[in-house]
């Protein structure tokens, strides 16, 4: 559908029409003409299945999802399965494989290459960004990843001053990661969408976004946790962050959630495709899909399966890949 019905970007068809409509009456007539003329082709595109919302070679998985399998089966067996499912991109959550035995980053890279997979990023602790950044960059280079990040909050000091200090520190890390040819990124949970403890008018995420250097600090939006953040703290739409800052969000966590009013978060985490977070609508807003990686993540995959499926995180990954691959807008 080419994003025609749900455009976004710096000046989308919709916002362009709005601007034009506000400028002159004559131009408003032109916009009306365009809307009518485009209705038929848009419908025809939809009938053919529409646009693939996540490019097929940008579908990845955060290995935290299947950490039980990495630990019990090792990287080799896990990569073989993931490649068979169709995944292209791997995001790491550590470089060890539990009881299977020691392995080096170079050996992991070989296993990636053997299975036609690519490392896209990694979650390392902010303590390692602070104390071990050069080594983490070396590992990332060995694995061939274009991004290096963390799943930690920017800081645990939830004041305005705390987040400003964090932004300054992150800018320094980002400069080093950029100099190494990669992008530093932060992955959110719900807490970042809370307001500063000392200023209820300032959302922590906004402080971080506004005070980090867009050349050096990027973000991976965990869509599920953003929706939880909206449920808990309100006043924003998760998609707006990506629409307004498309170049700053090279990565998305495609984590599904199912509404549960008994859960204080508002949603239960569930495998992709079994929830009701509006992913088709969300992703249809994005006009630069080919620049963004969609990473399946399910925190509880090792202990949860949609009935009647048995508990098996790899099977969750297989079904979730199929659901992501089928997304059309």
């Amino acid at each position, binding site marked *: 559908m080419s994003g025609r019905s749900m455009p976004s970007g*710096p000046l989308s068809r919709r916002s*362009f029409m709005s*601007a*034009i409509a506000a*400028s002159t009456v004559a131009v408003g007539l032109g916009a009306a003409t365009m809307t009518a003329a485009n209705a038929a082709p848009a419908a025809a595109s939809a009938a053919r299945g529409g646009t693939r919302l996540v*490019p097929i070679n940008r579908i990845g998985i955060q290995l935290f999802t299947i950490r039980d399998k990495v630990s019990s089966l090792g990287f080799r067996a896990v990569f073989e399965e993931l490649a068979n499912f169709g995944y292209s991109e791997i995001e790491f959550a550590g470089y060890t494989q539990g009881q299977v035995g020691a392995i080096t980053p170079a050996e992991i890279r070989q296993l990636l290459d053997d299975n036609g997979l690519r490392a896209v990023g990694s979650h390392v602790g902010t303590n390692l960004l602070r104390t071990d950044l050069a080594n983490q960059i070396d590992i990332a280079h060995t694995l061939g990843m274009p991004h290096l990040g963390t799943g930690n909050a920017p800081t645990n000091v939830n004041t305005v001053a705390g987040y400003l200090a964090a932004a300054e520190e992150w800018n320094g890390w980002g400069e080093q990661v950029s100099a190494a040819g990669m992008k530093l990124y932060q992955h959110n949970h719900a807490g970042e969408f809370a307001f500063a403890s000392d200023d209820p008018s300032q959302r922590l995420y906004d402080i971080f976004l506004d005070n980090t250097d867009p050349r050096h600090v990027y973000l991976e939006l965990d869509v599920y946790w953003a929706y939880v953040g909206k449920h808990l703290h309100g006043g924003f739409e998760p998609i707006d962050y990506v629409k307004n800052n498309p*170049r700053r969000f090279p990565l998305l966590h495609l984590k599904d959630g199912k509404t549960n009013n008994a859960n204080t978060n508002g949603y239960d985490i569930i495998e992709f495709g079994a929830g009701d977070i509006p992913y088709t609508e969300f992703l249809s807003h994005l*006009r630069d899909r080919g620049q963004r*990686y969609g990473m399946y993540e399910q925190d509880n995959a090792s202990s949860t399966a949609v009935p009647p499926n048995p508990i098996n995180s790899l099977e969750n990954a297989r079904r979730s890949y199929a659901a992501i691959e089928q997304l059309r807008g």
Partner: protein
Amino acid sequence: MKWKIPASAAVFATAAALSVAAAPAAMAATTDCTGDLARTTITGDLSVPAGATCTLGAVTVEGSIIVGDDGWLDATDAVIGGDVIATDAYGIALDGTSVGGDVVAYSADLRAGFAYLTDLTVAGNVELGGVDVEITDVRIDGSLSTLAPN
């Protein structure tokens, strides 16, 4: 006919988006686009500089469009007399109306990038390589060639 524009329609362009490089009087100038341009005619070539985002709405470019490294061209209802050429770009999206020459988008070694062509007529060739490609409702009078995304 979409975007039917009365001759008296006002030009709507953001000043920051439009700058014209100095050029000999006998040559058409090259216009840099680093923002939003709408309802205007560019008499020469249009350049999207490295790292810039250029959004065109109902714009006529009499010459060609060149998109630099990490440049993003997002054109809706544009009439382009010459070629559209993008190398190692962030991406290009052409959603209507016509390109008089070729559309060429290559990414040599970047992992990401895109070329989305929709509701378009292209008088020349379409050559796309190394980027995510979608082609919908497009008439190509010349040839179409693609290479797999990187």
